[in-house]
């Protein structure tokens, strides 16, 4: 992230011949990030090497990131002062390929699903950051427009519309359960007992493999959700959760 922040100011895809050095730096950074992910998945795979059903999805992820890293490495040599062309489009292809592979394998193998992870909260926080950046750009533009011409009904309507668009975006949940939650203040909780109505915070101490549902933003993630590998330990009753499908979030 620091690398991207440093080279971001000189990144100009509209003239790749002039900024070919920056293009190479971006490609190198992408390659290194994928190598790091390969190492992380490799370490996890070493821990779960005795569980065959966990090794296969991890191998798929490692292979996906390996292909991405190789392609990024090859792109290093395609950015030159004379001809960079549209080679940077390959980055988008790599990203889409990796996203599809990760999402599809997570849907297929429950061991690598997004349930009981902090992905929900992180995507929500990222959305808030992006909305905040939008508000900053909006206020700058409004300041300039009003400096040039005074407030008119059209300008006021556009300002109100822009604010309402930004504000209504988090109110457009892609999940019907969240719609119900917004309208009726019901929270969906995961349980570690036969009862389906136990509150999220009252987790019995014997339950160590489950955590609060990722759809309950008010409850902090339990320590168990940070553990790796996510193999079921013998002797511990696995928890029943009312929300198991991988969360595809915006």
């Amino acid at each position, binding site marked *: 992230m620091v690398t991207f922040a440093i080279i971001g100011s000189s990144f100009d895809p509209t003239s790749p011949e002039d900024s070919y050095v920056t293009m190479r730096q971006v490609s190198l950074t992408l390659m290194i990030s994928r190598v790091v992910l390969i190492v992380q998945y490799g370490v996890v795979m070493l821990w779960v090497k005795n569980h065959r059903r966990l090794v296969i999805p991890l191998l798929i992820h490692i292979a996906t990131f390996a292909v991405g890293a190789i392609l990024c490495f090859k792109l290093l040599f395609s950015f030159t002062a004379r001809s960079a062309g549209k080679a940077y489009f390959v980055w988008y292809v790599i990203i889409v390929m990796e996203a599809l592979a990760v999402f599809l394998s997570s849907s297929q193998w*429950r061991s690598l699903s997004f349930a009981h992870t902090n992905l929900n909260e992180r995507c929500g926080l990222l959305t808030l950051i992006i909305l905040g950046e939008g508000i900053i750009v909006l206020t700058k533009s409004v300041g300039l427009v009003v400096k040039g011409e005074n407030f008119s009904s059209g300008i006021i*309507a556009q300002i109100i519309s822009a604010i309402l668009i930004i504000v209504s975006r988090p109110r*457009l949940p*892609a*999940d019907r359960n969240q719609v119900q939650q917004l*309208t009726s203040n019901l929270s969906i909780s995961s349980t570690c007992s036969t009862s389906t109505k136990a509150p999220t915070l009252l987790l019995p101490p014997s339950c160590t493999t489950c955590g609060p549902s990722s759809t309950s933003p008010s409850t902090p993630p339990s320590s168990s959700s940070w553990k790796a590998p996510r193999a079921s330990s013998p002797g511990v009753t696995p928890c029943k959760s009312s929300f198991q499908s991988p969360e595809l979030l*915006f």
Partner: protein
Amino acid sequence: MVDYVYAGFESLAVSANSTEELTAGLEEYSSSVLKLVEADLSKYDVTSYLTSLAESDFLSDDALDSEFGILITLVNATLKFFKIQAAKATTKAKSVGLAEKDPFQDLINALDVYDLVFVYFFIAAGLTLIIMAIVIALNKKGKLGKGDWAAIGLRTVMGVALALIATVTVNYDAQQNFLSSVWMLPTVMMALLIVVVVDGVLGWVLPATETHKHTGEA
């Protein structure tokens, strides 16, 4: 903002009675606008046009050309401030055979970008809602209730409607009327608010069904 620049320019041009008065007024107006939009004066230089205007007869063709050049330069600087400008590759490709600095061609390129942004803004807004509908369908994995179908249908219809607004580019006059009006953002806002309000109503009338359960083993 572009309308403001144009309106100020027009009022000066109409009220002037001589070349000297017009030149002095435009010089002051240009410097204030360029300062307002924080323009790079080396790139957006109106000095040559002002000199040419001062040397030409009042309301002659040369004077009108100079006034036009000043106006185009001010509009280009304004569009540049709002980051509406063509890519360097496009500028180079379209400038083949033309003079080195052709502000009118720069304006045409920038307005092409403006039209492009208009098209993909509405398409992206529509696709956002359509993808939300797909996500609802995927989350439920086949067990869709009436409320789910209603939510999917609502988002799909509003998404398609928003995306189809981009087809106004087929009619040039309609596109220009819509672009120059204040209705672009309110249109998207109303579409999103309709989805939010109807979603809330559906949440009461047709509550969501429970998702499937399983043991949660790794």
